[in-house]
């Protein structure tokens, strides 16, 4: 067990855990940030996607010991008022069915649009195909990323 100091959503957190604990479980079990979801634990579904210094990563396979000083952003901290362009687009397009995968989808989309503010449809599909949606809302996820792109400047 060791004490890890983390910067999450621009706030300082600390957690006493074993170094091999995936960031996902530190967020969920130790810090109460349960917006980041567990789906597979092997980086296949994308439900656990968070940002590490602005880049989308799979927190289920990221040992907390390797986070270091990197800034972590979770769905809870993507925007202060839940009004990030991607979050707004997700509501406008009415994407969610069960909603369980959507935090990961939104985090993937937000990081992607930061890199590529005016993507083609092919680029959207390429970027989002790593995230599983068991309800099959893919048409609307694709549409919402397009809508978000019109809001991101």
């Amino acid at each position, binding site marked *: 067990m060791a004490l890890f100091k983390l910067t999450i959503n621009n706030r300082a957190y600390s957690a006493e855990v074993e170094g091999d604990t995936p960031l996902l479980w530190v967020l969920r079990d130790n810090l109460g940030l*349960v917006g980041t979801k567990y789906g597979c634990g092997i980086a296949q579904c994308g439900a656990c996607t968070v940002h590490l210094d602005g880049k989308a990563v799979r927190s289920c396979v990221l040992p907390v010991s390797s986070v270091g000083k990197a800034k972590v952003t979770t769905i809870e901290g993507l925007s202060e008022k839940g009004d990030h362009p991607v979050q707004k687009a997700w509501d406008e397009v009415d994407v969610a*069915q069960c909603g369980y995968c959507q935090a990961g989808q939104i985090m993937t989309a937000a990081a992607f649009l930061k890199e590529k503010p005016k993507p083609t449809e092919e680029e959207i599909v390429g970027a989002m195909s790593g995230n599983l949606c*068991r309800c099959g809302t893919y*048409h609307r996820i694709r549409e919402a990323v397009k809508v978000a792109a019109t809001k991101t400047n």
Partner: protein
Amino acid sequence: MSTINQASRRDFMKIAAAAGGGLFLGFNWSDSKAAPVVVDAKHIAAGSVKFNSYLSIGSDNSITIVSPNPEIGQGIKTAFPLVVAEELDADWKLVKTVQGNLDTAHFERQVTGGSGAVPHSWERLRKAGATARHLLINAAAAKWGVPASEITTADSKLFHKASGKSASYGEFAEAAGKLTAPGDIKLKDEKTFKLIGQSVRNVDNKNIATGKPLFGLDFYREGMLFALIQRPKAFGLKLKSVDSAAAKAMPGIVDVVTFENSVAVVGKSTWQCKKAKDALKIEYEKAAELESSEDHNRIFSNLMDNGEATVRRKNGDVEAAFKSAAKVIKAEYQCPFLPHSPLEPMNFFAHVREDGVELVGPTQTPDRARGEAAKITGFPPEKITVEITRQGGGFGRRLSADFAIEAVHVSKLVKAPVKVIWTREDDMTGGTYRPAVRYRFEAALDKNGEMIGYKLRGVGINSGNPTREDNFPSGSVDNLLIDSVEHKSAITTGPWRAPITNFLAYAEQSFIDEVAEAAGKDPIEFRLALLEKAKKSPAGEVKYDVDRMIAVIKLAAEKSNWGKKKGVHQGFSVYFSHRSYVAQVGEVVVEKGKPTLKNIIAAVDCGIVINKSGSLQQVRGGVVDGIGHAMFGNMTFKGGAPDQSNFNGFRLIRMNEIPEVDVHFVDNGISPTGLGEPALPPAGGAVANAFYKATKQRLRNQPFINEEAFKGIS
């Protein structure tokens, strides 16, 4: 921290008290003819009056509606209140929806399954809204001294045109709450609906997009322990001995307990429990046959020819028909086991206390969870509470109560609040799969290409009856025999979205395509002719609505421009399930020598569409689910153990693999029928039949990806 669900429940009670004398409406759902009862806040808070549904209007003009059925992504938490709000003439922006907890004294059919919630509750919900509106009007009429018949309503407001008077619902909530509700209430003319049929967004969108704790896995209670469970690694094994010394010595581990064939590692975090679970040393012994997929293939072949079949439906003289046939067509289709794979794995919270049990979690059948807890603990049901969380998918998996049973056992053994969490591997290898089935179809054609005989035998593994003997084409063929054989196995099975029909529809609709071709007829014309026959001179009882089926077939043909698109290979499929009718046309285009699935055009008759946005997505999602599992879904076994344990081995459809899905609803004004499931069954057949048109190769086994003919398709 608590779930939103729990907080909302409290909020609702608070609103009830704060509104002090607002309008509360309870409904006896067990008898839709019973007179609605109106009570005040005191009664609801004290729980002394028996109600089944609560609608409240506060003096602050807020409207709160409890949605009793579990929300698993089917959109019930938005659709239910929408129906109430329609008849109430409510301002939708002022409506707040609350997930109800298990309350069998006040609600009935608190189940998510069988696509049955809306059909069951449609009239009850409408009456709830209409009665409240009636009382508000009467309260205003009395105060204003005008006839109630002259008062109109819109957007949570009351108007009297002649006197120019108007008021909000909130202003008359208290007065309306003191009136007596009528026993009989007039509902709106469906043509005047303002909210129903519109696109309304999911009421939880904001909470979902900001990561609020909504789901069972998000639930946390101070002092709660986590538990991961090692179940037998193969179906057919039972526990012999456990060495938990190493696991117990690991950091964060509180205890290791054993019940039935399970070993539970209980500790302070999910990850610590997972590592300790991996350190368990367990010996198992054989309790039943440890079956492999090869065994299943052998069993299918043997039972298909030699099994003692149960006759499900018999019309006419089948043997004579086949003897006299000009042509006989015969084909076999097979599907594998499938896990449900909801993205939120199984989990459940239980706290077995000295005075009762608290259960919290994602379940499609909260009453079943309570019943099982009662059996284990000996507490009567009234000492057991069940809080229903939002659920990260269900697909039938959460109709079982095994995960709740586990949580109760563990909490009882360690005498602490416990949340049982399944890893993805646990979830995928833990059983209750869609059963594996093989079908043999035979059709007899006369010299004119008329189908005079039809035989279907289904052989399933723990499948129960793997046929739907009264579905089309039954009723349209004079000589028909449908029977089935079941093999009992240690591999557990259970309902999987559109049970049985999720595969049977594909097999049957593909076979009918084969028969139409052999008869030299267009697949749509062939089906329409059979349906005309079912209508004019039915063979035995016809248990589906022939006209509704014909209507969706014609709509799909029209919207797909059937048979008239150049370079587009179209395949047709139609199915009746869960009281609804769905026809689909699949479109395959060959690009650079490679057949590609481009479109699915779906014509859907689910009666009145309540929420256009939610309904559209149910159909699209159902189609994506259907084609995804038809193309990729495969669970195989060796020595009783599944070969696939996570999404690296078990393939789910992804965004780059979906076709466009074009959805058309039939507008016929019929009261709503099911929609959570009916779009799935026809999807596989539409794809297989379109693929055949493009390649002349039949896809008779799922998953398609394993079929030689399918290689190269995308």
